[in-house]
């Protein structure tokens, strides 16, 4: 188990959003949080990495209790986060967005600008372009590339397919699959069920800040009532 979060209670000011969420991720797995808009997927991810520290509960990463750590320490510990809105540094070039996230570990297997360009060849052609001028798909690739520059052991993706055209989603799916095949551990939130089920071993269903279901993809697919109750719009 590389990540274990227990009993997360998180609030924005007076409005309580998470009520005892628990999430675990095993090394090499891909795990997906499912749920309708506003159920607390993003809040769960933000709680894990210290952007919105939980009021109660624990986050343990690789045996280390990182609850309430500042985001930069969490990042240095080995968790990378690709936010829902991508949030690239719009005034920086594609290359600069990667360089700015360069961190620590050198060596053959370490991520660097060149390796990101090999993984996402489209980015190499955009090298000097300002990130603010990229298309949605290009932005998502760059956001993932930026996250990889920190040589993470856990990659967290918040709704990576949101707002992308179907063909771009397919390409993205292949990229994530390749990262996984390369040994990356992945935790993501998704509303695109096809993408989620194609990539994940396990899924969680969130509803109004509670975990309603936790299990393997096969278990999820066996229980058809789950979709109607928690996912259908």
């Amino acid at each position: 188990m590389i990540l274990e979060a227990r009993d997360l209670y998180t609030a924005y000011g007076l409005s309580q959003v998470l009520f005892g969420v628990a999430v675990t991720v095993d090394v090499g797995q891909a795990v997906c949080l499912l749920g309708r808009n506003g159920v607390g997927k993003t809040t769960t991810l933000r709680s894990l990495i210290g952007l919105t520290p939980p009021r109660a509960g624990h986050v343990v990463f690789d045996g280390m209790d990182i609850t309430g750590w500042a985001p930069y320490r969490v990042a240095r510990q080995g968790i990378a986060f690709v936010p829902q809105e991508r949030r690239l540094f719009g005034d920086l070039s594609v290359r600069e967005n990667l360089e700015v996230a360069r961190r620590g570990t050198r060596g053959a297997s370490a991520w660097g600008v060149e390796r990101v360009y090999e993984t996402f060849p489209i980015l190499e052609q955009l090298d000097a372009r300002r990130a603010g001028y990229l298309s949605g798909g290009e932005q998502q690739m760059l956001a993932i590339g930026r996250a990889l520059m920190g040589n993470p052991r856990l990659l967290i993706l918040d709704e990576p397919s949101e707002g992308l055209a179907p063909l771009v989603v397919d390409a993205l799916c292949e990229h994530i699959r390749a990262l996984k095949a390369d040994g990356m551990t992945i935790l993501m939130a998704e509303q695109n069920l096809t993408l989620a089920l194609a990539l994940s071993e396990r899924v969680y269903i969130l509803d109004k800040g509670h975990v309603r279901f936790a299990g393997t993809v096969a278990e999820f697919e066996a229980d058809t009532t789950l979709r109607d109750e928690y996912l259908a719009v």
Partner: protein
Amino acid sequence: MPDLSAFADPGFLAVQCLNGLTQAMFLFLIASGLSLIFGVLGVLNFAHGSLYMLGAYLSYTIASWFVGPPATFWVALVLGSIGVALVGGIIESVFLRPVYRREELEQLLVTYALVLIISDLVKLAWGAENRSGSRPALLAGSVDIAGRDFPTYNLFVLAVGPLVALALWLLLRRTQFGRLVRAAANDREMVGVVGVNVKGLFTGVFMLGAWLGGLGGGLAAPIGAIFPGMDVEIIVESFIVVVVGGMGSLGGTLLGALIIGQLNAFGILFFPRFAIVFVYVLMAVVLVIRPWGLLGRPVTRG
């Protein structure tokens, strides 16, 4: 009625223009720090003029410690500005860090309080009378510009301005620190998410801005009088430079400083006492036509 015959004298015009440029260099040094700090930290630092004043007094005093050796001025300039940077580091971590998440008005009040505190401390330490530093022997003379004298020292200041601008540009464009600074101006939360200690970065940026202000003060010490009101005098014009040029734009700050410098230098021929009127009018016009400044960009801060 202003004496327009002055305009017929090329030497006078040239010197007046150079005076405007010299003033522009000082404005640029102060305003670039002000603009950098605002762009990254989001705080409008009223106390930036106080850092400039502190730079002038510190350099003056350090220079007075060792009377004689030719390197005095340079040592004082370097040590004085570094001293101001250190003071800036303390100011940022003690007074500003707690208010980043507060309302802008609260931040303004804190920096305004700092203006009052530093002003009183300076009066306590150095008294209320004017002082003036001395120029380095190397630059003590003057040069002939079309029949008129122009201080060599001012020529030196004219060279320092562009050099600092170039160095700043290289720092922001070509180094990891510069990339981080620009990234933080876009999205400081994400800078933390990629593993950067934003607190440390903010302290570094404030120290850099303070150093620029201190350097301006140190350079001003041998020219103008050093007096307790010099903080307010410079901060007002620096704000105008930044507003005219565009907050957060280095090029805009330089352009703004050049324009204000010339307006002051030539405006004084028309209204000897009220040259600043031209500057206010310019600011008002810019605010109406391009509220984000000449080279700035319309921003929506998140």
